[in-house]
């Protein structure tokens, strides 16, 4: 990963197949996530869009740029890569292995780091700000640490100053109390927020074109990892119990008859909330 490729940009976009938040989501008896009704993580669509916009702003595929959608997970996880190809990624990679089941953030970042080293070098590794299932936001920072790369995380804007070998990336990051501007050399790990762009939808042409695009399927052995380095065995945290939160009961609903504001204050006083 040390040297950026001269000429065309190689961008890896990490995409995840996650349970659809529009439905009830479940944790199974084995304490891992039940992956039915799954989709490309909404937050990863912003990362893919950011990759496509960077490429388009700098000459597109004709300039030798390439966007690769990468995922890890069970057979169905390839769905996230397929959707990415329909939206506009050039090719895809699916790391799949039974032994990956139950990986926590540290094991996930270990597998992804090995995968990216195997496939690389990349100029840019783009991710969403968090997965919508694990929701930890740990993986991008852990990837950067493992690969020895700068991290530009929670980018709300992203610009690339072109140049051969000395490209720089500038980004804006919003905090509760301040906004920061960030600069980094490439290669770098970048995570983006949902403020950065409006992701495009796949169109008919994209869907047809995706059928001809390649998806490389790799196993742990292909990227030089042992089975016990990932999955439950390779994780540094363990889930011991999971219980659905009891549903909230509906309380009183009143219709305003001119005194609802006063009745609201009565309710708050009764709950000792004033």
């Amino acid at each position: 990963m040390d040297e950026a490729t001269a000429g065309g940009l190689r961008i890896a976009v990490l995409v995840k197949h996650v349970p659809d938040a529009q439905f009830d989501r479940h944790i199974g008896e084995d304490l891992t996530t039940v992956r039915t009704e799954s989709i490309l993580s909404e937050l990863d669509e912003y990362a893919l869009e950011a990759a496509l916009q960077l490429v388009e702003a700098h000459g597109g595929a004709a300039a030798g740029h390439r966007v690769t959608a990468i995922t890890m997970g069970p057979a169905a996880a390839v769905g996230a890569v397929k959707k990415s190809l329909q939206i506009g990624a050039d090719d895809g990679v699916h790391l799949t292995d039974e032994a990956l089941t139950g990986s926590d953030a540290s094991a996930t970042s270990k597998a992804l780091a090995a995968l990216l080293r195997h496939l690389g070098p990349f100029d840019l590794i783009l991710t969403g700000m968090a997965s919508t299932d694990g929701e930890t936001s740990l993986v991008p920072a852990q990837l950067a640490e493992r690969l020895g790369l700068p991290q530009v995380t929670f980018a709300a804007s992203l610009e690339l100053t072109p140049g051969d070998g000395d490209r720089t990336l500038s980004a804006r990051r919003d905090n509760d109390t301040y906004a920061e501007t960030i600069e980094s050399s490439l290669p770098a790990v970048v995570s983006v927020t949902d403020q950065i762009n409006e992701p495009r939808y796949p169109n008919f042409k994209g869907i047809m074109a995706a059928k001809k695009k390649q998806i490389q399927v790799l196993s742990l052995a292909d990227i030089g990892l042992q089975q016990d380095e990932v999955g439950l065995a390779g994780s540094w945290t363990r889930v011991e119990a999971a219980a659905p939160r009891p549903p909230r009961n509906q309380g009183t609903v009143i219709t305003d008859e001119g005194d609802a504001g006063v009745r609201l204050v009565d309710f708050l006083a009764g709950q000792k909330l004033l």
Partner: protein
Amino acid sequence: MTTVLVFLDHAGASLAKSERELLSLGASLGEVTVALAGDADQAYLDGVGSYGVQQVYRPDSAAVSEVLVAGKAAFLAEAVRTTGAGIVLLGNSYEAKEIAARLGVRLGAGVITDVVALAADLTATKSDFAGSYTVDCRVTTDVAILTVKPNSFDAIEAGGPSSPHEVRLPVDLPAAVARVTGRVDKPVSGRPELAEARVIVAGGRGVNGDFTPLEALADALGGAVGASRAATDAGWIEHSAQIGQTGKTVSPQLYISVGISGAIQQKAGMQTSKVIVAINKDADSPVFEIADFGIVGDLFTVLPQATEEIRKRGL
């Protein structure tokens, strides 16, 4: 006795409530030592001392804060090695989680984020799937790194206050880092931060661009103002106010939902609030299904009346 290292980032004039909660939790687990990344004045250090902290570690170079995340992670790793800490506690901001993430890789230590409860054997409780599951988990490595949600633990000062001794640590910054080249402070609203607020008044599409009545009620209740994605996307309020699946997850004592229909993504961000009040014109809004007290009515008459009533009662 276990050494507990508490990481404090941007030191303000005085300790924030969430920082007090971290120090108090640390003191309940072992002997607390602080790793402080920012600059601190005496009042801040006295605040730290009121939790019985004997030592405060500081980086020997300001460069730690000039690079993004990696510098603070390197500093904290050095502090863990120096103190032999078995537990590291951090806040739950995005940046704190990322510092925890890099620290975990550096130390080969497990990280648990969003902790809301902690047993004596370090079994941590957190919510998953945006509050729809409660999950117990444990770190399996020698060092445990935990990021703790605000409002989850009480801040109880230690019996004997101390004057903490400052120790400077040399930090080796990683070679490849992103640099912070500028910082603009946002205007201070005077209201509590969303993540820490006891009361939140949140508005959605129904406020139609006018947050004034929500701000007035929030101020009467000493609360913060939040918003649904529809309201932030419309530009009616800044994006950092966004609550929900892709915004902030909050669990205040009181959440007042105003003009928000309660789509699943919004519910995801607030359903662990202790008490939920919903005000909406549409009686069929899904938010009423989870509200403890719901009002079908016009927010522009209900909210000013409630605000006036709170003032009238001298509350």
